[in-house]
């Protein structure tokens, strides 16, 4: 049920104990594709209620940008969840690594590449420490990473005050970074010439002053897609992927079968922290500033996206593509509501209802199609 790799023809054919199953059913059984049903529902809803500009190219980009930042976190969180653990310090880690990154650039005047490398390294180390504490003490990761949620958030505040001399906002990062190739890898938009060309030939919308409404694809979207691809490949096709499923499904059984459960979990914690650092780098470079509230409650949103995408909170089951769609659904709902006429007082009511409906619908469709009861 978890994986549906192709089967040697000899195996499945002609067993009278299997009913014939259509291609659609087969596809819908994959956990990730269930999330598509939720996505369709949400899109249909907005199609009828939202301003048409939502479904224009530029509208989609305004949705994809936040969805992709959340999505990078969600995919890491979902890998960690498949591996049987939680990380509640993701959001604080975004703020903390953002501070480290910003301080390296401004206060220490380091070049961009050193700052990026050091930030990622530090995040990996801190994630691994998180993981080691969880493993060695055998405490639930919930409580350990919750402690780090507070600790890192607090350190960010202290660090910011130190770095800025009393403020909780570190600015002026744009000025020191300049405009190298490396910066373009982590911030701004890609494929700019293409979009300019398209605009010149009136293939995409532009503003009255001739600038295309969409100047390119935000690089975070590319990262998002890339991370999804790699994570999916690792999960479904590699040894480490098998170990992740095993470690989350039943750590004792996995250990007894020779899976290095502890190393896998430590690695996943490090990975999650790195994903947070990546998002921090992208947002800090994009915004040119960082503050004490960056990433607030992002751990929550990441877990929501992973769960919408079909990952089990108890571990051992889930997919990266599911988290991909989960993040898009979440982004669509939260930005999409601003395209509608609903009063913002009702925002949370709608957000909650849409989430519930999307998950319910996804679930309903999956059960209908697979005949599961």
């Amino acid at each position, binding site marked *: 049920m978890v994986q549906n790799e192709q089967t040697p023809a000899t195996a499945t054919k002609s067993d009278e104990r299997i009913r014939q199953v259509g291609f659609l059913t087969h596809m819908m059984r994959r956990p990730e594709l269930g999330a598509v049903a939720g996505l369709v529902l949400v899109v249909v809803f907005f199609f009828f209620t939202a*301003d048409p500009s939502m479904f224009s190219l530029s509208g989609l980009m305004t949705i994809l940008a936040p969805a992709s930042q959340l999505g990078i976190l969600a995919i890491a969180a979902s890998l960690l969840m498949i591996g049987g653990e939680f990380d509640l310090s993701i959001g604080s880690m975004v703020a903390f690594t953002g501070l480290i990154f910003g301080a390296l650039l401004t206060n220490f005047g380091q070049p961009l590449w050193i700052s990026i490398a050091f930030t990622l390294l530090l995040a990996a180390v801190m994630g691994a420490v998180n993981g080691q504490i969880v493993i060695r003490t055998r405490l639930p990761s919930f409580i350990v990473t919750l402690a780090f949620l507070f600790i890192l958030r607090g350190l960010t505040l202290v660090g910011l005050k130190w770095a800025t001399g009393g403020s909780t906002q570190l600015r002026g990062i744009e000025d020191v970074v300049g405009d190298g190739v490396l910066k373009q890898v982590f911030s701004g938009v890609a494929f700019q010439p293409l979009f300019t060309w398209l605009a010149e030939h009136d293939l995409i919308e532009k503003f009255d002053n001739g600038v295309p409404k969409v100047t390119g694809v935000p690089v975070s979207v590319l990262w998002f897609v890339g991370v999804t691809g790699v994570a999916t490949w690792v999960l479904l096709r590699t040894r480490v992927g098998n170990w992740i499923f095993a470690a989350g499904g039943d750590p004792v059984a996995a250990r007894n079968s020779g899976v290095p459960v502890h190393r896998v979990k430590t690695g996943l914690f490090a990975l999650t922290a790195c994903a947070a650092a990546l998002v921090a780098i992208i947002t800090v470079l994009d*915004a040119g500033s960082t503050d004490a509230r*960056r990433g607030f409650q992002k751990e929550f949103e990441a877990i929501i996206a992973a769960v919408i995408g079909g990952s089990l909170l108890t571990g051992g089951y889930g997919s990266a593509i599911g988290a991909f769609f989960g993040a898009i659904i979440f982004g669509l709902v939260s930005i999409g509501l601003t395209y509608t006429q609903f009063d913002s007082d009702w925002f949370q009511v709608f957000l909650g209802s849409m989430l519930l409906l999307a998950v319910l619908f996804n679930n309903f469709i999956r059960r209908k199609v697979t005949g599961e009861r």
Partner: protein
Amino acid sequence: KDIKIIVVSHGQANDPFWSVVKNGVTAGAKDVGVKVDYRAPETFDMVAMSQLIDAAVNQKPNGLIVSIPDASALGPSIKKAVAAGIPVISINSGSDVSKSLGALLHVGQDEYSAGKAAGMKLKEMGGKAAICVNQEVGNVALDQRCKGFGDGFEGNVKVLPVSNDPADVRAKVKAALSANGDIDTIMALGASTAGEPSLAAVKDVGKLGKINVATFDLSADFLKAVAAGEAAFAIDQQQFLQGYLPVVFLANYAKYGLIPGGDVPSGPNLITKDKAAQVVELSAKGIR
């Protein structure tokens, strides 16, 4: 043709301060007959806010009203709006950068100077040692209120981080007061969330009247305490105007191209014992 205006602020709809701004927006829209949308990120999140501004620009409104607590993060999005030909008015925070980002004008007064005014007033009342009760540490707007207060007060100021829970605020203020008997001034950063429980705590330790309690923003119960002489004052930015005026301005700009020539300072307005009684009812309705 309908005139549509979008407001993007950094204050959530359930924040007592911003709910008054929103009421102003709604009242303005009704008075001049335009459509408005009020948007804010779920938490104090500058990245999300810039994305909301992008989404707003994409809808091509006839006017855009934004608060600017972080010019670096929001600047590019605001500039994009201006470049797209959308008239922008900034409110509340960002008076210093408003012009340079291309906004037509700024309505409001920044948190720092409001804090400073309050600090000076409390110093004048004889305060030497104070706590600044902050219900949302890390929210730049509140941090600035505290910072301004400290700079104006010029005495010994300690920040007391609390949550939104009145029982928690009350307990922490009580704890701070019993741990340090020198404290003679309490500056709360929100009237209902921090101010009222602080007053209760002062009552609990039996120092009502001996400790000057002041707060940002208004709430009916706090104002009653001010009227009764139990609390010092409440400081008000008249944020209703920060919502009301820009809507009216932008509507007139869209209709007739009319716009005031300069920034509009909406506050601060210290509400002391003599004025408090009149404001209670309005505050209970979310207008002040």
